[in-house]
């Protein structure tokens, strides 16, 4: 019985992230538009876009290989599994032990690996430029992320995300220098990983400034829908990650009743909304940087992460 309930919670979480992700993207776009004194598309517009894309035929380039057609499904699956393992409304996820935080990061890296390959499959320069820049950004963002994971794991004594979130919610972590450094680094990595301003511009129409959009330039129809959905899931994943690690309040503990789960869901949606609004404000306030300034930005994140990890290695009290 307990197993069935936990399975139900896990399934609910999987569905929740899948259903909420496009709304989050819609919210960010709406707030950005309002900040620019435009009216903007409704928040539900991404759902309509997805439905429209899903209904259309795929137009494949003549020399696209099987890898190009398989990649959207792989990316979507890997991102969805990763997003389903990040605690959202409650900490007691059934399959939390099957992949810890390191594995979740690596799942996202798998998704990126295949997307970068797909960018090179048709053999156009734009695809190549996107892939090449994306792996450069990843080569700095991943070690920075790993340093953040080290810091969190050493504070909570575990790399299991549910355990870390439970530890953070209990308040035992307290205010720590290393935690603060990791928080800033995580935000920087999240911006870079999700191809947001100032690292990349998700709304640009100038090809040479695109990274993520350049890789998916040749995609259309249902393939594009899956990739867009995966990108939305990734954004949701990072906001959930920041929420469950640094503002864990309101999350339902692993337990019996329904009421905490409902409260947790409400709190989670509120956190997502706040995260999305803050992201929109940040993106509106800042200009995109040149591609070769990105290493400086991510290098700073890496150094912050390394400093945080170093502090934890040196002493338990930081």
């Amino acid at each position, binding site marked *: 019985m307990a197993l069935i309930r936990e399975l139900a919670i896990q399934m609910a979480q999987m569905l929740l992230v899948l259903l909420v992700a496009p709304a989050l993207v819609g919210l960010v776009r709406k707030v950005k538009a309002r900040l620019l004194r435009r009216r903007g598309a409704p928040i539900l517009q991404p759902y309509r876009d997805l439905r429209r894309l*899903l209904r259309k035929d*795929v*137009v*494949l380039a*003549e*020399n696209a*290989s*099987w*890898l190009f057609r398989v990649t959207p*499904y792989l990316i979507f*699956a*890997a991102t969805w*599994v990763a997003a389903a393992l990040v605690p959202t409304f409650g900490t007691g996820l059934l*399959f939390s*032990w*099957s*992949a*810890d935080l390191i*594995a979740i990061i*690596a*799942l996202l*890296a*798998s998704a*990126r*690996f295949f997307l970068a390959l797909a960018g*090179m499959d*048709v*053999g*156009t*320069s*734009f*695809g*190549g430029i996107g*892939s*090449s820049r994306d*792996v*450069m950004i*990843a*080569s*700095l963002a*991943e*070690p920075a*992320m790993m*340093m953040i994971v*080290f810091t969190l794991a050493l504070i909570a004594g*575990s*790399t*299991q995300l549910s355990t870390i979130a439970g530890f953070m919610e209990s308040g035992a972590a307290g205010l720590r220098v290393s935690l603060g450094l990791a928080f800033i680094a995580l935000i920087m990595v999240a911006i870079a990983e999700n191809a947001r301003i100032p690292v990349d511009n998700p709304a640009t129409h100038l*090809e040479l400034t695109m990274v993520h959009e350049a890789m998916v*330039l040749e995609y*259309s*129809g*249902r393939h594009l829908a899956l990739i867009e959905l995966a990108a939305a899931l990734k954004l949701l994943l990072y906001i959930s990650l920041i929420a469950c690690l640094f503002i864990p309040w309101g999350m339902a503990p692993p337990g019996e009743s329904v009421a905490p789960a409902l409260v947790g869901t409400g709190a989670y949606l509120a956190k997502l909304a706040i995260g999305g609004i803050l992201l929109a404000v940040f993106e509106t306030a800042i200009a995109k940087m040149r591609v*070769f300034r990105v290493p400086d930005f991510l290098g700073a994140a890496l150094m912050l992460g*390394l400093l945080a*990890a*170093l502090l934890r*290695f*040196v002493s*338990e009290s930081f």
Partner: protein
Amino acid sequence: MTLLIVLCCVAALLVASCFGPVASRSRAGATILYGTCLAISALAFSAAFTQLIAGGAATPAILLPLGLPWLGAHFRLDALAAFFLAVVNLGGGAASLYELGHGRHEPAPQRVLPFYPAFLAAMNLVVLADDAFTFLLCWEFMSLTSWALVMAHHRDADNARAGYIYLITASFGTLALLLGFGLLAGPEGGYAFAAIRVGHPSPTIAAFVLALTLLGAGSKAGLVPLHVWLPLAHPAAPSHVSALMSGVMTKVAVYGFIRIVFDLLGEPSWWSSMVVLVLAAITAVMGVLYALMQHDLKRLLAYHTVENIGIIFIGLGLALAFRANGMRGAAALALTAALFHVFNHSVFKSLLFFGAGSVLTGTGERDMERLGGLIHRMPLASFAFLVGCVAISALPPLNGFVSEWLTFQAILLSPALPQWGLKILIPAVGAVLALSAALAAACFVKAFGVTFLGRPRSPAVAKAVDADRFSLAAMFVLVSLCLLAGVLPGPVIDALAQVTQSLVAGRMPAQGAVPWLAIVPVSASRSSYDGLLVFVFIALAALLAAFVIHRLASRGVRRSAAWDCGYPDPSPLTQYTAASFAQPIRRVFGTIVFRARERVTLPPPGDTGPAVLQVDLQDLVWDWLYAPICYAVGFAATRLNYLQFLTIRRYLSLVFALLVLLLLILALWL
């Protein structure tokens, strides 16, 4: 029993080697020889595997009346040897199977067939040897047979140079090991490993032995800065030998390091782990950066071996640090991670070299800038190569991820170490490990993307055909091993328990009892990973998405010209090349590490000539370390040259002067 079987296999390989010249006369002969090697390797593998799984603490040993009359030849099969024997023979068997089909493309079989079985035999013997003399003899035999195989296509000037540099480095490495064993054996000359184990060397001697082992085994394994021969020699050999050298022979070198440092040297001091960790971290990141700059497919793979050796040595260094502080469980975890990576790397590096060999025979090209679009011409080989790329990039759910994950878990145990130096060094090593993993993914996006995806860059690609049955069989055996070890890592870890038990007197928790086939390195509340579930989840999610979309939404596909923002360029030369793909990383990392400089020469306005982009890379290791040594040797040789043309009188007086000098030194010393 198992030891006898393996020794008989070695003898059979040596006999097969003698038939090499005969076998090379006909295609049937080559097939029979490779078939024999395959059967012998399979037998030796099963013997070693049985010993590893069922052998327990038993270590069969044997003394043969060979070699030095007062020493004999000792052979012993303990858990460590059994594990490495399994790795060697798995690689050997796969290479033989591959060459069964691929061998008919070999232009000079008479230069390969006599040495190939001998090379396999030599690697087996190094792992079995139980005294210093036999070990060094077999080590040198291994170097020489592999040198002969590197020189198989010796008319190519590059190969001749590679062979020359390899020979010098190999001799240097053996010299270092010789001195190391001399120090270990002490003045009494107890060269049997059993005698060395009971003697406890003083800290100074231990430090010298560690340094000499790092030089000797490290140069064979490819530790930076001793790696220079490796990216020259490995690609020069025929592809199956490249796979063996990169996938297996470097592992034999790792075995030599583990045998001496963990087994013979006794309790380590904590600073020795710092030396190993620093060298390993430099090796890991330099190896992958070198690999990213290459556009020769086989050389890229060879440089990437350097990176993986760095990852293995990071695990070994951590194990040394934990062991020096008596943290047996953590030492076992770090050592298991290193050994797991030894196995993993031997599997996927062999797989990737087989793929590169098939590309080379299919197109006649190793230069990635002239390849492209091979996924259409070689679908099966490219699938196998893709799996190898994913595995080596440490991505779940394949095997490369598991060993790196275990290494990260070992790093997370290190704040408990008491020494400040290690506390500060290890997080930096962790950052370097993460950096090299991310760069490895970039490197293999480049390797696969440029070689197999996109549009063909030269006509050579158009005539490419997929690899033959045997080559594909060898590749797919390794593909399935990559997947199996990735989704079921528990049995591999349990198989390694006996090895860690004998070397660091600790073992990881038994993984067989963990529910759902997950792995738990320390305790369940701390961390766990379940490759099988992750794999099943991804597969289910992808299938579900495909099913739902195809049933409820659209399934139509239309082929059309590439979009490319409305301006598709018909020429495949406008694609991203290997050099342009690496450009951002070259700019970020290469300006410091390689002094990379880009020069653009634009023709003046009105001139229709092409613009030229020139990239200069400097190999600082070569320029700062090897070039001065070469210069010094050349200088000394020129100066001493005139000694060749003296009269007999002068020679006699020189001999007399030397004798007096030596006697004087002796008189002062005593």
